[in-house]
């Protein structure tokens, strides 16, 4: 795949469909010096969904619904990648540190695409869920069986590294397939309105900002370590992305 094709694929679908060929042509003609601008342009457009030229009705809402779930999946992977911080531990026994999860879950609930309530539609969604999640469920089951067998505890060197890689590839695969399922459901389901989606993004952003703040406050009291600080920074960036996108979406005509 050429750099021009790869850079073009980073643009929001609506922009890609409208201008993709021209962007690719422009990147190919200008060469490597145009790459930073092409990257920055793609990032700017993702943060400004109100500027996307819709090629069919509801395209922006559909793409943003999937993006919101992708953002949540990235957050999950991020929190898993760092040493699970006590400051953002979620659970019924830790109500104070679970605070950030409340707006996040509320936002996800607001943005969830709702399949039509008919037997046929629900059967189709169930079949799609089984098809999409069968492979990641098998990978997770294999990972759990390996962990429970105790084999992983005795691995060293390359075998140990391969097991860690398998673990992360499995988590990434699960996240990707969950987003694929949301995209599939969003094709036929009733999508949230623009206003609702914007509110959902703001709630998700608030939850992420709370998580970043809780994590940062906990890190302030202890000796500074790069782990929690970079985790807070990443959460803060995700929060800023969600809030900025949600605010921009309010500009869109309903």
């Amino acid at each position, binding site marked *: 795949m050429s750099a021009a094709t790869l850079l073009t694929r980073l*643009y929001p679908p609506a922009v890609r469909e409208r*201008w993709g060929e021209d962007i690719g042509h422009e*990147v190919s003609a*200008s060469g490597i010096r145009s790459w*930073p*601008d*092409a990257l920055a342009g793609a990032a700017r457009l993702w943060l400004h969904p*109100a500027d*996307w030229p819709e090629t069919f009705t509801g395209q922006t809402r559909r793409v943003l619904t999937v993006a919101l779930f992708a953002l949540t999946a990235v957050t999950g992977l991020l929190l898993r990648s760092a040493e699970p911080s006590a400051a953002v531990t979620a659970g019924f026994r830790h109500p104070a540190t679970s605070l950030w999860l409340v707006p996040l879950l509320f936002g996800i609930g607001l943005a969830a695409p709702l399949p039509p309530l008919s037997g046929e539609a629900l059967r189709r969604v169930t079949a799609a869920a089984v098809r999409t999640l069968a492979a990641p469920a098998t990978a997770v089951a294999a990972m759990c069986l390996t962990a429970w067998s105790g084999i992983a505890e005795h691995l060293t060197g390359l075998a140990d590294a391969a097991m860690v890689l398998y673990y992360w590839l499995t988590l990434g695969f699960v996240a990707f397939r969950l987003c694929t399922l949301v995209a599939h459901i969003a094709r036929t389901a009733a999508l949230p309105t623009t206003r609702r989606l914007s509110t959902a993004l703001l709630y998700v952003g608030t939850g992420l900002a709370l998580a970043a703040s809780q994590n940062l406050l906990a890190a302030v009291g202890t000796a500074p370590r790069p782990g929690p600080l970079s985790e807070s920074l990443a959460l803060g960036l995700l929060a800023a992305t969600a809030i900025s996108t949600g605010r921009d979406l309010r500009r869109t005509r309903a």
Partner: protein
Amino acid sequence: MHSNDAQMLVLTVLADGPLHGYAINTAIEELTGSRLGPGSLYGALSRLEARELIRPADETAEAQERHRTMQITDTGRDQLRVELQQMARISAVGLRALGIAPA
């Protein structure tokens, strides 16, 4: 280049007549001596279209698909005129302050 500058340049070259993406950038290069980066150019085109300051020159879907030639709208012309007049006022004040007579 700042995104507002890019939008202004696109509006300026489109004021002369409809052009497609690559031709817009070529016209900007003739005007300023350098091309806009792809992110700046197509970001500006998307924003200007969303604000209804430009629109496809041919409304048929097939033509949009093949050429994507854009033209400035009446609102775009009004916006460009206001911006250019403001720039002209600022330019005149700046030149006077420097002791240079405006051309």
